[in-house]
């Protein structure tokens, strides 16, 4: 123990005894202890810096998703094989779900896109853009083939469909409003930088990652258990990306149809869709009080601008409560409370902020700017929800004449479960003759059990 060591010890010892542990570690720590002067041939070990996942693998993922989407489209449209779609879905679950841990997914990409559009500092990676746009483009041309065979969240829900029940029509309509609200809120929060709520409240990603917040695990388990009796609850009643896919799919020309030929109304496919995406033939007889309904629709149309303005205004008033979910605004809130004496104890956040030396005026200016963003965003969100509700109400006054069994282009996921129920499909596969198929349309025949 040389003198050198003793002096160093003494200095540090005294300091250690006199000073208490500071509340916060200093940010710019001065060099208190001089660099050692080694006499032996000791060499310092290297600091390991393991690299993150190689970027080239992300591009391989793009390749895989292109192949998967193309394959899904082919399997749904040309091959029409439920079994193969199922196998592709299992692959997607294994690869995009458990291997890639469900991240980045096209659903979450909505947030990245919103964030990128309104925050010049964020450079959105190219493959995130591709993940976002590609399924939408496929849906625009070929329907929602992404949902059935490629989406890992859909796949995990599809995997637990055991005894699906029919959700009553009115309930499905009401619950169908939630994805719009979720989409609006997700875009608002992502664009203002408050957070990615789709990722935060994703029930299934905990399973892919084998790790999640306890509440999310419970939520996910509940969703899956619900999913055994209500098929794909998240897809139908929550998925924000589903809203976009719905719009795209409705506009598609080449959507899958139940029958490879012409429908003969044999009714065999009626109960085959667990997702309620089959539209049944409908005479669409006019209701008793037709005039009253026409008047109501007229009212709605006239009032649409008023409703949009009103709901937009309400949305703008939500700027303060919603902006509090942004970390900068909540910090400014806490600083204000402390400065005005309403709160006497500091939180970790305020202690850290005060130690950083950043002027509070700057913080308040930032928070004010974010609140302003929420105000504008609130107008847009409110107006959007108002418009959607008006349109939904209007559409519920109308009933289209339907002559045959067809898919609802917006909600059909192109899973192919219904194909095998159709007698003409059986003809195409060579199981029965065309004449037998004709018969099934014209009289009631009991069908032997057959594999789907």
């Amino acid at each position, binding site marked *: 123990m040389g003198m050198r060591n003793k002096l160093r010890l003494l200095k540090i010892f*005294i300091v250690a005894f006199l000073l208490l542990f500071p509340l916060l570690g200093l940010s710019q720590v001065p060099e208190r202890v001089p660099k050692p002067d080694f006499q032996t041939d000791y060499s310092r070990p290297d600091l390991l810096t393991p690299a993150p996942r190689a970027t080239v693998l992300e591009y391989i993922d793009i390749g895989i998703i292109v192949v998967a989407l193309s394959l899904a489209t082919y399997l749904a449209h040309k091959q029409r094989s439920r079994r193969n779609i199922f196998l592709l879905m299992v692959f997607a679950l294994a690869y995009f779900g458990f291997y890639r841990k469900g991240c980045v997914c096209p659903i979450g990409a909505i947030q990245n896109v919103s964030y990128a559009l309104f925050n010049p500092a964020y450079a959105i990676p190219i493959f995130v853009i591709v993940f976002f746009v590609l399924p939408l483009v496929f849906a625009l041309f070929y329907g929602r083939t992404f949902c059935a065979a490629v989406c890992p969240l859909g796949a995990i829900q599809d995997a637990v469909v055991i005894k699906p029940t029919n959700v009553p029509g009115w309930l499905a309509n009401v619950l169908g409003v939630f994805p719009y609200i979720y989409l609006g809120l997700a875009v608002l929060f992502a664009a203002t930088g408050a957070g990615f709520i789709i990722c935060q409240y994703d029930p299934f990603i905990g399973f892919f990652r084998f790790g999640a917040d306890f509440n999310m695990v419970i939520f996910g388990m509940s969703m899956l258990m619900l999913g055994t009796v209500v098929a794909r609850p998240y897809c139908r009643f929550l998925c924000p990306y589903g809203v976009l896919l719905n719009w795209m799919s409705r506009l598609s020309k080449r959507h899958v149809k139940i029958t490879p030929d012409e429908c003969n109304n044999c009714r065999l496919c009626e109960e085959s869709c667990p997702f309620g995406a089959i539209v*049944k033939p409908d*005479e669409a007889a006019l209701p008793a009080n037709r005039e009253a309904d026409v008047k109501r629709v007229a009212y709605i149309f006239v009032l649409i601008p008023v409703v949009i303005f009103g709901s937009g205004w309400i949305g703008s008033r939500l700027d303060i409560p919603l902006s509090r979910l942004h970390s900068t605004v909540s910090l400014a809130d806490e600083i*204000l409370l402390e400065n005005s*004496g309403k709160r006497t104890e500091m939180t970790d956040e305020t202690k850290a902020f*005060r130690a950083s030396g950043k*002027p509070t005026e700057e913080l*308040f200016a930032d928070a004010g700017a974010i609140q302003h963003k929420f105000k504008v965003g609130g107008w847009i969100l409110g107006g959007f929800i108002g418009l959607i509700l008006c349109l939904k109400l209007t559409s*519920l006054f109308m009933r289209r004449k339907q002559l045959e069994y067809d898919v609802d282009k917006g909600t059909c996921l192109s899973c192919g479960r219904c194909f095998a129920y159709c007698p003409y499909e059986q003809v195409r596969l060579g199981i029965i003759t065309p004449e037998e198929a004709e018969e099934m349309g014209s009289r009631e025949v009991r069908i032997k059990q057959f594999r789907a």
Partner: protein
Amino acid sequence: MTKLWYNIAKRIAIVAAVLAGILSVLMIVNYIQTKSVDPLNSQAISQLMTRLKESPNDTALKEQIRALDLLARKAYFTHQWQIRTGSYLLFAFVLVLLLALKYMSSLQPRLPDLSKSPEPDETWESKFLSRKYIFFGGLGLFFLAFVLGILSQTELKNIGIIKTEESQGTAVFPSIEEIRDNWPGFRGPEGIGVAYHTDVPTEWSGPTGQNILWKTPIPHPGYNSPIVWGKRIFLSGADRRIQIVYCIDADSGKILWQTELNDILGSPERRPQVTEDTGYAAPTMTTDGQRVFALFATGDIACLDFEGNRIWAKNLGMPDNHYGHASSLVTYRDLLLLQFDQNAGGRLLALRTRTGDLVYDQPRDVEISWASPILVITGSRTELILNSNPFVISHDPQTGQELWQVRCMQGEIAPSPAYADGMVYVVNDYARLAAITLGETPNVAWEYIDDLSEVASPLATKDLVIMAASYGAVTCFESKTGERLWIQDFDEGFYSSPILVGDSVFLMDMFGVTYVFKAEKEFQLLSKNELGERAMAIPAFMHNRIYIRGEKNLFCIGD
């Protein structure tokens, strides 16, 4: 055949479900257990560690801690293993369960009941129901959102407008009466050495204890004077290693709290050069009734609340000062003002009391100074008057702008200005004692060049000006004409400034002896009181009490 497979699948499903269920319950229980006791932040171990600090050589205690620590670490890593393995097992069971169930359901196709006639999926009834629920649901949603929006408006106004509110002065600060009822800064309420509590004892003795109510040792030294607000006395102390603020209870003399200020961001690594008679904590603290502010020779400035909690602290840059920074702090409404005159030039700084944010940094064309500003209402406006070389400058405290300046000073300025009845009095050794009349164009009315004070600030009343030199001479002048009325020589010199208490003057010399004499045209000594130790700071005068800080102790004088 398929019936056989169906039954097998059913059995497998049941077994898998039961196993999965049991495992889920186990994992939930595991989670709840570890939630309540975090093995790596164990309360038990922390308690034992505090006991160990008291008796560091207790080997049995050490063994106990080691055993507990080993258990804790094992528990943590076992828990990690349990989560991992449990998850994988659960996944496997659920997978088997799902496979079995899927197989079972695939054997049961969903066929329609062809005996019933087909129903369209959306009848007018169901559409009506949907419309009803969506309409009322939408109304409910908007109502909730509206209520949420309205409720929140009242709690927190738009943050953007807070700034204008603050600058409009809606912040809370004490009234002039409250300020005069306390002793919130260097040389009293306005900094001019006038005490508003006149019912104080005129006789006491430190050595005998006469009229000494209590005496509390202050561990760390500092030349700053005590400040008092209500029943709390505040002082700061500093040496090479530590900067500390003390709060002492005015009635009992107990140290209520002491807060160290050693980890301020930007604080210089090495302490500045200071001379022995300046020290590291020369600037006197100040308070606005809610917070106290302390400044040290390192340029560290801190704001604490009355309980000792640090509200904000920053470093203003180490002052370029060869004796050590000494100018004291002043508060004006919601601003904390500082005369920051250094070798590199002069500055007047104003910080927001609540946040420490810089409000203005007014450059001053002056040399280095150790004086403190005075804040006085001169006629219709409030002026912040600073004594410096070569100008005496008056600033608007709200904006920092110069109001007037008079060139009359020289040298290394330590005494602060005095003010009474429209006249400002400044002095410096090797320069002059100058009396400045305020008005349209302030100018020097009279001056005097002998027996000048070097450290102690002069005292002015409507009729008299009193100056105390550091070699022991005290001179008294007629305030308007400058006619010297009397001069007295004392044994020891004065660093502490004379304080006007009613119609008497209290003046303490460097050895702690306080002389009380009449503020009259003729010198009349009323009493001479010993403290028992050396003292440089200015006493604080409160209702029935005088607080004197000696080199080692804080004394409370009272009957």
